[in-house]
């Protein structure tokens, strides 16, 4: 059973090097979390009183303005941040794909990066060696895999990161926006893999500003606003409420019935 449960969780960042006076002015701004300064150290309340329950088969899109707390929420769900107040419980193996540069060494080859990524995600060296060919095939990077990572384009890095993450059978996959850099052909491939992942009773949370991607991968959505969950429900309903119009109407017909929108991806 894969699940993420969060009860009344808050994430407060202490900002040790900020002058609290100038921060008070900042607090009037609308972007970013609330800034409190009850104690000596100013605090940014990135997430406030989050209560969530995600189970296997859930494919959740994460929408919201910049600084609404999407990335922080993803990190809370990944277990990177333990809530300052409240509780969280994560059951299952988490594979986060946040910043594509992190955990990737630009100076070493794609192969070596695959290995390191895999080890970080809890694989053993042997298990990764078995998967390398599969990843190489999936990413279509060919001989580039022996080149240093710094020679890769952004899209190629996304391919590599997604290739590793989807090959290791994660139970919980958390994606942040960066994946937008890949081309459509590859996306179709990635979709199949993600579909398989969700079908294996995995759980997907995907933060994106792109309606197409959300429609492609998700069936429910969370709307984050100023560190709160403003709305959580059906993807279309949330998007309509968030955008003020129905983005699905404008999309191409094929997106009206996205392959992934079945129940857990089993029926097409």
């Amino acid at each position, binding site marked *: 059973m894969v699940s993420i449960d969060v009860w009344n969780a808050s994430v407060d960042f202490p900002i040790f090097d900020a002058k609290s006076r100038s921060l008070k002015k900042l607090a009037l701004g609308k972007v970013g979390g609330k800034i409190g300064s009850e104690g000596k150290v100013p605090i940014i309340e990135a997430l406030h009183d989050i209560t969530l329950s995600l189970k296997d088969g859930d494919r959740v899109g994460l929408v919201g303005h910049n600084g609404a707390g999407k990335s922080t929420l993803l990190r809370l769900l990944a277990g990177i941040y333990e809530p300052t107040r409240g509780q969280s419980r994560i059951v299952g193996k988490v594979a986060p794909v946040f910043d594509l540069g992190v955990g990737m060494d630009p100076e070493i080859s794609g192969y070596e990066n695959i290995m390191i990524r895999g080890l970080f995600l809890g694989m053993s060296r042997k298990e990764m060696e078995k998967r390398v060919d599969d990843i190489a095939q999936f990413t279509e990077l060919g001989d580039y895999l022996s080149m240093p990572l710094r020679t890769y384009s952004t899209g190629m890095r996304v391919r590599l990161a997604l290739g590793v993450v989807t090959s290791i059978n994660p139970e919980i996959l958390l994606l942040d926006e960066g994946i937008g850099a890949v081309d459509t052909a590859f996306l179709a491939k990635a979709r199949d893999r993600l579909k398989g992942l969700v079908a294996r009773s995995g759980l997907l949370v995907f933060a994106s500003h792109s309606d197409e991607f959300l429609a492609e991968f998700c069936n429910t959505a969370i709307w984050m606003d100023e560190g709160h969950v403003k709305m959580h429900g059906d993807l279309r309903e949330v998007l309509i409420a968030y955008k003020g119009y129905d983005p699905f109407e404008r999309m191409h017909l094929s997106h009206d019935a996205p392959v992934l929108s079945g129940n*857990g991806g089993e029926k097409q």
Partner: protein
Amino acid sequence: MQATSTLDQAEAPPAVKSRSFKRAFADVREAWDHRELWGHLGWQDIKQRYRRSVIGPLWITISMGTTALALGLLYSVLLDAELPAFLPYITAGFIIWNFILGCVTEGTDVFIANEGLIKHLPAPITIHVMRMVWRQVLFLAHNLVIYLIVMVIFFGTLSEPYRMTDGGTLQPGISWTILLAIPGFVLLAVNAVWVSLLFGVISTRFRDIPPVVNSFINLVFFMTPIVWDADILTKVTKTAGSDSQWRVLIAELNPVYHFVEVVRAPLLGHHVDWHHWVVVGGFTVVGWLAALVILRNYRARVSYWV
């Protein structure tokens, strides 16, 4: 399938306490389970540093060799010591000191330097410490080549009882006790882990600690019998009378001296003094307790602080 958040929320919050010794131990244990990861990363760090250089990690060995040779020549003259006995002494001491230096200076910086990884991948924080200590072990392994060369050259002197300085202690010479260097070094490495866990977490919160440590560590080097010999203290004491006994404390009160000595004495065939082992053992226990308390209370805060 409609997932509505609060309606099907699981039962009441479990009593999962983030601040517990169980979680602190789990962090260390999981880091050990990930040994393939930090083992790999440690190697990678070394390879990385010498990428594109022609002789690669051999530079580590060469720089250690020249330093040890120069210091050995200089100080054996200054202290009027026997070169065949004193050069190995300085070499071994300097290699061990380099390990300690690396662990302490990089240890204070260990979480700050790994900010990206800590914020992007859920992993026990002890992993970063293990990777750093492992890297230092690999550096030490490269430097051991110098020790072996020096040993081969001066084995004649060191294999029989010898004195480093005129009137110094008579050392028994190399024997089976050389094997004690292995447990000695394991103890040293185990201590390196708690030191960097403890100071790493504190430094992440208080960024003044790394510069403070960096400016005092040189002082520690000169205060520790590495380029000089603790025998000198007793020699001075003998000539100056009994009221200058306190001078021995210059070395004895310095914990680093004991850590150096548990590894160095067996390597050189010096007399193995068990009180060093007792001191090091005590530091191991107390230090790990302190590190576990810090880990218990602030482990979860590190990702907020970096």
